[in-house]
C-alpha cells in the first residue's frame, strides 16, 4: 500500500482546488479547509501576541520603566497572555493539525459534525474579534488570570469585552473537543481499532476530554466576573463575605488542565515525528497512550498548586503538592520512551526531527522545573517570580510551540502539496532553539534571585540577565518569522510533494498530497498496526534532506 508514494502532478483535483471563491472557503464544511482557516487566524493572533512579547522584552531592557508607562506595560503582558493562551496555544495544534489530520488518520471522510466544526471557527473568530476590540478600545490590564477582586472592582479597563472574548473562544474549544471525541469513537475506518490509532489521535482524545470537561468551569467563572461588574452580583466580592480564592479555585480547575490542552497534542506530534525519522515503532505504544490519558485525568487533581501562598489551607496545600508529583510519572514515561524509540533506529535529521530533539530536551527542563514548583518549600520562594515565567514558557513555547513547528514542517507537504526548503527549515529550527534558551534560561536565575513577575521596572542588579533575555527574544522572533516566510514561498515555488515524502506510516500518507475533498478515493481498510515502519520502504531519496 505504500506504493502510493509515486510523485503526482499538481493538476489532480484536491481539497484546495475543488472549488473556488471566498464563499467556498467561508462556508466550507471540509475539515481540511476549516483547518486552514484556523491556521490563518491563529497565525495572525500569534504575531499579535508575539508583538506584545517583544514590547515587553524591550521595556525590560533597562531597569527603569522608560519605554512605556506602567499601565501600558500591564496591558501588554495581560493581552500577551490572553491572546497567546486563548487564541494561539489552546487552539493551535488541535484546531489546525488535529482538525486536518484526525479524520484522515482514522480513515474518515470528515469530522462527525462538520457544521459544528465550522461553527467552532466562527466562535473563535467572534471571540477573536472581541479580543481585537478589547485591544483597540484601550486594552485590559487584569492579567490573563482575571484575579478577583482586582478584575471585578478595581479596574476600569475593558474587562467585560475581554471576559466575553475568552468565554466565546472557550465554547469554540469545547465544540472542537466534543467533535473530536465523537469522531474518534464513531468514525474510524474498518480495522482501525483503538490499539491501532496513531498516538497523535490518542493525544487529541485526551486533550478533548479536558476541553469538554474543564473549559465550562472557567467559562462560568469568567461569566460571573462579568456579571459582577455588570449587574453587581457579589459572588467573589470580599465586602459581601465572598472569598477571593474561590475565583482562583474555579479558574485554575480549568487553567491548570489547560496547560495539558496545550502540551498533549504536542506530545502526539513528537511521537509521530520521532517514529518516522527513526524509522521505528514507538517504544511502548500502550504505555504512551495510557500516559496521555493519565496526564489528562491527573491534570484535573492538581490545580491548587497555583495557590500555595494564596492563603489556602496548609493541609490542602500538602494534598495538592503530593498529587502534582503524580503527573510527573506519566510525563517521565513519555520522555524516556521517546528516547528509547530512537535506540537502534535509522535516524535522519530533517527539520521536524530537529524540532523533536529540541522538544525532548526543552520539555525535560520544563517538566523538571515544574517539580521545583510543586515542592512546597521552593514554591513559596519562587512562585510569582520569573522562575514561574521561565518554567511555563519552557513547557508552552519550548514544548508546545516547538512541537507545533515540528508538526507544521512534518505535515506541510500533506497540507499544501509542496515541500518547504529544508536548509532554511534547519536554520530556523536552530534559531528557535538558541533564541528560546537565551530568552528563557536567564529567567530561571532571575526568578530564584527574587525578581517578581509582571514588574515593569526592577532593581538594577537584575539587568544583566534581562538584557540576555531580550537579546534572545530577538533571535527567537527571527526564528519564528522565517518559517512563515518560507512556507508562504513554498506554496508557489516549492517542489511538488509526493504522497509520502518521508516514507511515514499512517493513513494520512496513503492519500495524495494534498488530499482530495473526501480524503480518500476509496474507503480505506486497516489491516496493520500503528507505526509499521518495518513494512514501509525507506524513500529512495529524502527529497528535503541536504
Amino acid at each position, binding site marked *: 500500500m505504500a506504493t502510493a508514494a509515486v510523485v503526482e502532478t499538481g493538476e489532480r483535483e484536491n481539497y484546495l482546488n475543488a472549488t473556488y471563491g471566498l464563499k467556498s472557503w467561508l462556508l466550507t464544511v471540509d475539515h481540511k479547509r476549516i483547518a486552514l482557516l484556523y491556521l490563518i487566524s491563529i497565525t495572525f493572533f500569534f504575531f499579535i501576541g508575539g508583538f506584545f512579547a517583544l514590547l515587553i522584552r524591550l521595556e525590560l531592557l533597562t531597569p527603569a520603566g522608560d519605554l512605556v508607562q506602567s499601565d501600558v506595560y500591564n496591558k501588554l503582558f495581560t493581552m500577551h497572555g490572553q491572546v497567546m493562551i486563548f487564541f494561539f496555544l489552546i487552539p493551535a495544534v488541535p484546531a489546525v493539525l488535529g482538525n486536518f489530520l484526525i479524520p484522515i488518520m482514522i480513515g474518515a471522510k470528515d469530522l462527525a459534525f462538520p457544521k459544528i466544526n465550522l461553527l467552532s471557527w466562527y466562535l473563535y473568530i467572534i471571540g477573536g474579534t472581541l479580543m481585537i476590540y478589547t485591544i483597540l478600545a484601550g486594552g485590559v490590564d487584569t492579567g490573563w488570570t482575571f484575579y478577583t477582586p482586582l478584575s471585578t472592582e478595581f479596574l476600569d479597563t475593558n474587562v467585560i469585552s475581554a471576559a466575553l472574548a475568552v468565554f466565546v473562544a472557550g465554547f469554540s474549544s469545547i465544540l472542537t473537543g466534543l*467533535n473530536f471525541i465523537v469522531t474518534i469513537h464513531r468514525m474510524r475506518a474498518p480495522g482501525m481499532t483503538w490499539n491501532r490509532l496513531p498516538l497523535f489521535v490518542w493525544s487529541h482524545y485526551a486533550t478533548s476530554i479536558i476541553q469538554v470537561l474543564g*473549559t465550562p468551569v472557567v467559562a462560568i467563572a469568567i461569566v460571573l466576573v462579568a456579571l459582577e461588574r455588570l449587574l453587581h452580583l457579589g459572588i467573589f466580592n470580599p465586602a459581601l463575605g465572598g472569598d477571593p480564592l474561590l475565583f482562583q479555585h474555579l479558574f485554575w480547575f480549568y487553567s491548570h488542565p489547560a496547560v495539558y490542552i496545550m502540551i498533549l497534542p504536542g506530545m502526539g506530534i513528537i511521537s509521530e515525528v520521532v517514529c518516522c525519522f527513526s524509522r521505528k515503532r514507538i517504544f511502548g505504544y500502550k504505555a504512551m497512550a495510557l500516559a496521555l490519558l493519565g496526564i489528562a485525568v491527573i491534570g484535573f487533581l492538581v490545580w491548587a498548586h497555583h495557590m500555595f501562598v494564596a492563603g489556602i489551607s496548609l493541609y490542602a496545600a500538602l494534598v495538592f503538592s503530593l498529587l502534582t508529583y503524580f503527573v510527573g510519572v506519566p510525563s517521565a514515561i513519555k520522555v524516556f520512551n521517546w528516547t528509547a524509540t530512537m535506540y537502534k533506529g535509522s535516524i535522519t535529521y530533517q527539520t521536524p526531527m530537529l524540532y523533536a530533539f529540541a522538544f525532548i530536551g526543552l520539555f525535560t527542563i520544563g517538566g523538571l522545573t515544574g517539580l521545583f514548583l510543586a515542592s512546597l518549600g521552593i514554591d513559596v520562594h519562587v512562585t510569582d517570580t520569573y522562575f514561574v515565567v521561565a518554567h511555563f514558557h519552557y513547557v508552552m513555547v519550548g514544548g508546545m510551540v516547538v512541537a507545533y513547528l515540528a508538526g507544521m514542517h512534518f505535515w506541510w507537504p500533506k497540507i499544501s502539496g509542496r515541500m518547504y526548503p529544508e536548509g532554511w527549515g534547519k536554520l530556523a529550527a536552530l534559531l528557535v532553539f538558541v533564541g528560546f534558551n537565551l530568552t528563557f534560561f536567564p529567567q530561571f536565575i532571575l526568578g530564584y534571585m527574587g525578581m517578581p513577575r509582571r514588574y515593569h521596572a526592577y532593581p538594577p542588579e537584575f539587568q544583566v540577565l534581562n538584557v540576555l533575555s531580550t537579546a534572545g527574544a530577538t533571535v527567537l522572533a527571527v526564528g519564528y518569522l522565517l518559517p512563515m516566510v518560507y512556507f508562504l514561498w513554498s506554496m508557489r515555488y516549492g517542489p511538488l510533494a509526493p504522497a509520502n515524502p518521508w516514507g511515514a506510516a499512517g493513513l494520512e500518507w496513503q492519500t495524495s498530497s494534498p488530499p482530495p475533498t473526501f480524503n480518500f478515493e476509496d474507503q480505506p481498510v486497516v489491516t496493520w498496526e500503528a507505526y509499521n515502519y518495518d513494512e514501509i520502504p525507506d524513500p529512495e531519496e529524502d527529497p528535503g534532506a541536504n
Partner: protein
Amino acid sequence: MQTSPAAVAENHAHDNPALLHHFATEAQQKDAASLGMWLFLAQEVMFFGGMFCAYLVYRYKYFGDFGSASQQLNMWLGAVNTVVLICSSLTVVLAVRAAQLGKRMALVFWLVLTIFLGLVFLGIKADEYAEKFEKHHVPGARFSYHELLPGQEGKPAAEQQYANPRHAEMYFSLYFAMTGMHALHMIIGVGIFAYLAIMAYKGRYTPEYYTPVENSGLYWHFVDIVWIYLFPLLYLIDRHR
C-alpha cells in the same frame, strides 16, 4: 476492543436524504449525534458545576444567613414550577414517542404543550424576580435586607438575631446567577422547541429521522434535572425552623 461502526455496511445505499455524506450508515450518524449530545450535556454539568461549587462553599460558611434568605423565596411558587417542569419533561417524552411512531400532529401537539409549560415556568420565574426587585433583594446598590435568622421568631425581641445582610446579598447573588443561567437555558430550550414544532408541522421528522427531536429532548430533561437540584438547594434551606 470493538471494531468501528463504519465497518458496518460499507456500500450502504444512500437512500435517506437525511444521511450526511460522511457517514456510512444511519445508525452511525444517529449514534454520533447521540454521543455528541451527551458530551454537550457533560459540558453543561461542569458549567453549572462551577456555580454549585460557589454555592457549596458559601452555604458551608454562612449557613444561617442562607437559611434566612432562602425563606424570603416563595416555596410554593418554587414547588409549582418544579411540577410544571416535571410535566414538561413528560410531554417531551411523549413528543419523542410521537416522533418515533411517526404521528406528525401528535408530535406538534406535544411540542407546543412543552413550549407552553416552559413559558408558564418562565412566567412564574419572572413574577418571582419582580417580587425580588420590589423587596430590594436584588444585589447591588439598592439591596437592603433586615430579616431574622431561622428559628428566631419565638424569642424575646432583645434576643432575636438578625441575618447578616451582606451574606444574604451573597445568597441572592447566587440565586440570581443560578436561576438566571437556568432560565436562560429554558429560553433557549423554548426557542429550539418552537423551531422543532414548525419543522415537525412541515413533516421533516420521520420514524427514520427524528434525531433533532430526541437530542432537544435530552437537553430539556437536563435543564429539568438542574432545577430538581436548584429547588431544594435554593428554596428549602432550614424551612422547618
